[in-house]
């Protein structure tokens, strides 16, 4: 009986990959890092539904300090749980889920996009 396991193991062969030296890709629907396109963002004209829909407060509005300037949308990738709600509710299509999944790094600067 032990021999049958051995044979099965040999038949299966090596399935593990050489990641990270070999790149892996995620499926099309993968919810990885959220990407914000500031050019398309019309947060000042809308009620910021993305901010309201975010369950983990990863999106927030931030003023520049100048009263006449509109608030801008700030995304904190460390707080993001990649649920995709913000992408669904964005009326301008400024947010999208990407297939990027490699989030670990030693120096995450808070409040900036994952680099």
């Amino acid at each position, binding site marked *: *009986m032990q021999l*049958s*396991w*051995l044979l*099965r*193991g040999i038949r*299966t062969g090596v*399935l593990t990959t050489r990641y990270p030296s070999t790149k892996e890709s*995620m*499926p*099309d*629907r*993968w*919810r990885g890092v959220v990407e914000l396109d500031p050019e398309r963002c019309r947060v000042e004209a809308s009620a910021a539904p993305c901010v309201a829909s975010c*369950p983990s407060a990863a999106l927030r509005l931030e003023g520049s300090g100048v009263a006449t300037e509109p608030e801008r949308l700030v995304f904190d990738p460390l707080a993001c*749980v*990649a*649920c*995709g709600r913000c992408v669904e509710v964005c009326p301008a299509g400024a947010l999208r*889920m990407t297939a990027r999944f490699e989030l670990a790094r030693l120096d995450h600067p808070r409040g900036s996009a994952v680099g």
Partner: protein
Amino acid sequence: MTSARPPDPTATRRDAARPVWLPTSTTSGLTIEPAPVARWAERALELRRLDGSVFVDLFGGPILADGSVALTMLFARPDHHDWVALRDAVAPRSTFPSLSPVLEAADWYEREVFETFGLIPTGHPHLRPLGVSGGTTADELLRTPLDPASVGVVDYPLGPVRSGIVESGHYTLRTVGEEIVDARLQLGWKHRGIETLATTIDADQLPLLAERISGTDAVANGLACAVALEDLAGWHVDERASVLRLVAAELERLHDHAAFQAELCQATGLVVAQSQFEIVRERALRLAARIAGHRYLFGFVRPGGVSIDLDAALLDDVRRTVASLKGDMVGLGAMVAGSGSHQDRLRGTGAVSEADALGLALTGPVARAVGVDLDARRDLPYEAYAGLRPPVALERHGDAAARARIRQAEAVIAADLILTAVDRLLGQALPASRPDVRWAPRPGSVGLGWAEGSRGLEVHWVETGHDGRVARYRVRSASFACWQGFARTIPARNILTDFPIIEQSFGLSYAGGDR
């Protein structure tokens, strides 16, 4: 015992006869009976005798405006395919008669009420904090409640930090030679206060939280929560979404049962078999990622339906992959069944008696392994399972081998259910759009949702206050229900080296129990 029935200031607006502590049930099949807590023991026995009712939950909350605490005891009635809840309100920091002497299963639940709400169940056989509800320090959790050991008796501490990927649990195993003669289990290390957190967020985000109670039960918990919310808001889920949810739930069962077999093989040192089962699990997780964009299907089930549909190409992918996984599970199951070294370690190990399974209201594969013929998919049907009557695997011996056979059989049944569901989905047109639903719950109401997860029955109680916000979110996880049985089983004629096998053969979730 002190019973308090506070005056209801909104009684004239709502229902003159309905006090504030008695919410309206929005779930068809859930009856909420007002009953003084002093009569609960008598009523519980009556329900069990007359209707074959099964104890499911006992919990406190919400805390009412005058400080009194609502108490609820929930029963499932499989023979009637419905639910009965007993409800009362008691004054803060008061006492109520313990049900544990007549209803053994109530033990841990009463201790949780004691720990969380400060209500004292008088007559409880060993009242002390359970440690699963926060507010208990690590030092207190580690304090062993065993009497001092005498000469020749060794107390073997284990955890809470352990090797490998095993979650955090702390055990004190008392041994005489090889045999475990007593054991204490201390949970609570994964407590995140999810039930409290739920009352601070928007209710339509509740399933996101429910999915994170325990990653490997994500669909079961997300589904139970979504169903409860749908009842509260009066939403209808269309047939296609319901079948898609079934596919997700059964895929979760398939990958979790494969993981179970892998971990059991690891416990007995059958490493090639472990890797083979892990391959099955990994392929199932990758299929989940292709379906939902998440390996544990987070975000797939939504109140009102599902977040994303599956087109014909993806359904074909599901069919081919699941058919292949089923073939692998059948082949591996036969090989494991024929492995003498593996089976020798499982047979007779960690045996649960039928009396304990019934008395402690155990659920899922742990209960079915000792002949408790109960599966919510058949006996309390919900969603697409209604009318399907899926086959239920049963065993008699209640040991680790029986639990492994149950999980093996259920994995194959899960694959069959997915294949049948995919055939149904392929015959349907894709809906034009996902329903756009807005959260508008009924105030002062209860929605009950449940799902048969891979570990058993997950039950979610969502209760709204009079402002329409969630006032109480209660999760009775299958793992919580089964941990009581696990603690009882360890010292029952087992030796120290049986411990990892008993633990893996129960296959419970620490995070799920701790919430």
